[in-house]
């Protein structure tokens, strides 16, 4: 129970800090970027003879960008924000303080990241249905996309939390480098290495849940990765859960084992 109270305390404290003008403005910009961009693209198409054929693909990519950015902002500087604000010693000198900081900030980061994606997805689907009306099952698409992005926020949040404990002074740069290398390079390689990336599994789940509505063909993806048959969604989810739990466990171990030296001590 002590652990639960400590993690919950961190979660609630971060939530209260979130309700500031600056942070809410950042969240609003990130959340509204995809629907605004989508609306502008649709509007631009009105002046051409072409049609915007696959808006859902653009939606998925836009929302991925802003969700990742949200997780980058809130999950990565878990240790550094306390060190920079000189409040590390206050929380670290509590029983279980170090681990509860990592877990509590992880939970709040997932909530913020998911909030951004929820608003974005809702806005984008409203724009698509209003401007094109091309979705056949919008409720299912909305639900499945939100579920996928919730899982994505949890997955990337865990990895970013781990990066934040390992490279606390340059956490965001390290996390950005990880995202680019793993998400844009390794995940595209048709080899075993791609199965170690989060994007590979999230991609397959997305294709199976709403790929058809988006105009994406699962067989194209399987051909790209040279797969004869694709594992079930359950297998991908299991892999992601293992990745989340192991990242968080490793982050907890790192934060307990490392010395975080503040400038006052040197």
């Amino acid at each position: 129970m002590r652990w639960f109270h400590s993690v919950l305390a961190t979660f609630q404290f971060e939530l209260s800090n979130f309700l500031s003008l600056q942070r809410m403005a950042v969240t609003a910009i990130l959340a509204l970027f995809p629907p605004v961009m989508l609306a502008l693209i649709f509007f631009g198409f009105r002046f051409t003879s072409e049609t915007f054929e696959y808006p859902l693909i653009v939606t998925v990519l836009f929302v991925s960008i802003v969700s990742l950015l949200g997780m980058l902002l809130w999950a990565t500087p878990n240790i550094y924000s306390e060190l920079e604000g000189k409040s590390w010693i206050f929380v670290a000198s509590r029983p279980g303080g170090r681990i509860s900081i990592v877990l509590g900030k992880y939970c709040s980061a997932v909530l913020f990241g998911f909030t951004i994606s929820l608003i974005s997805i809702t806005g984008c689907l409203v724009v698509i249905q209003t401007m094109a009306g091309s979705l056949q099952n919008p409720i299912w698409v909305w639900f499945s996309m939100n579920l996928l992005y919730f899982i994505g926020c949890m997955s990337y949040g865990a990895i970013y939390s781990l990066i934040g404990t390992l490279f606390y002074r340059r956490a965001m740069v390290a996390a950005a480098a990880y995202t680019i290398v793993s998400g844009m390079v390794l995940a595209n390689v048709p080899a075993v290495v791609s199965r170690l990336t989060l994007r590979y599994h999230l991609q397959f789940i997305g294709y199976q849940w709403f790929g058809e509505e988006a105009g994406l063909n699962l067989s194209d993806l399987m051909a790209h990765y040279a797969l004869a048959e694709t594992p079930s969604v359950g297998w991908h989810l299991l892999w992601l859960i293992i990745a989340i739990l192991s990242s968080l466990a490793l982050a907890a171990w790192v934060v307990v084992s490392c010395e975080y030296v503040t400038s006052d001590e040197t």
Partner: protein
Amino acid sequence: MMIELEQVTKLYGSVIGVNDINLALKPGTYGLLGPNGSGKTTLINLILGQLRPTLGAVRLFGKNPWSRDSLMKKIGLCPATEVSYPRVTGYQWVKYLIRKQGFSSRVADQLAKKSLSQVRLEEAMHRPMQNYSLGMRQRAKLAQAIAHEPDLLILDEPFNGLDPVGRMEMIQFLKDWAGQGRSLILASHILHEVEAVNPSFLLISGGRLLASGSPDQVRSILADTPNTIRLRTSNPRQLASQLVEHVAVDEISIVAAERGEVGEVLQVATRSAAQVYQALPDLLANRDVQIYEMQSADESLGHLFSTLMKIHRGESQGGPLT
């Protein structure tokens, strides 16, 4: 033992934080004295398990604090660092930290209000901390340290930023705390403020523990070392003529009294203040000389440390080295 350090050394790269410290402290009140950069904060962080010693071993209540953070339930820490949560109120911050001790929200609420009223912040506790004065932030830090009623309270430079009234209140609070039988470690670079709490002293400089002991033992170090005594008397010249014959007196000068004082002032430079103090009653007997005031001009932390360094370098006689 409450705290034990065995040959503890802490290095930051090639910079020495603390150097070969041996310490065994029973529950009680201790003043950790040292100039800025002497290693006080490093020593505190080693005791708390926030830093791992490069060499040696640390034990807190018999256990290694690095691997047993459950020991933190018994510790209250008021560090020197400034608090930096501009939009958070004092109450919210203290309650948050109490909840991180493992208390439920309801219990934390009660403890927060109680500790904030103990430090006289109850009227201001719902104001954002960015509107607090330095003294109020210091009191908020103290509140979060004492709220969970720890066995050992550690304060690092608690008098920073406090006005004279605030200092007096802090001293009284610490005396009351010690009077309740709880342990206290008070780190500071100001001797007379620490002295007011009447602790045992731990004197640290350059990462080394130079001396430890009761206030009387520390005073005796000063007493047997070169010192300048200032005497305001009714007849300084007559007293000077008596003192000049004493073997411990090196130099005598008569200076004008400072504004508001009566009479002239006799300054006696001696190689052993204790011998002079012992000799004074005999010198004054049957003489028509009255002493209005007597003080040592060198009773400062700087003098204490320079004396200790001389002893350690063998330039001066002092107590036996351990």
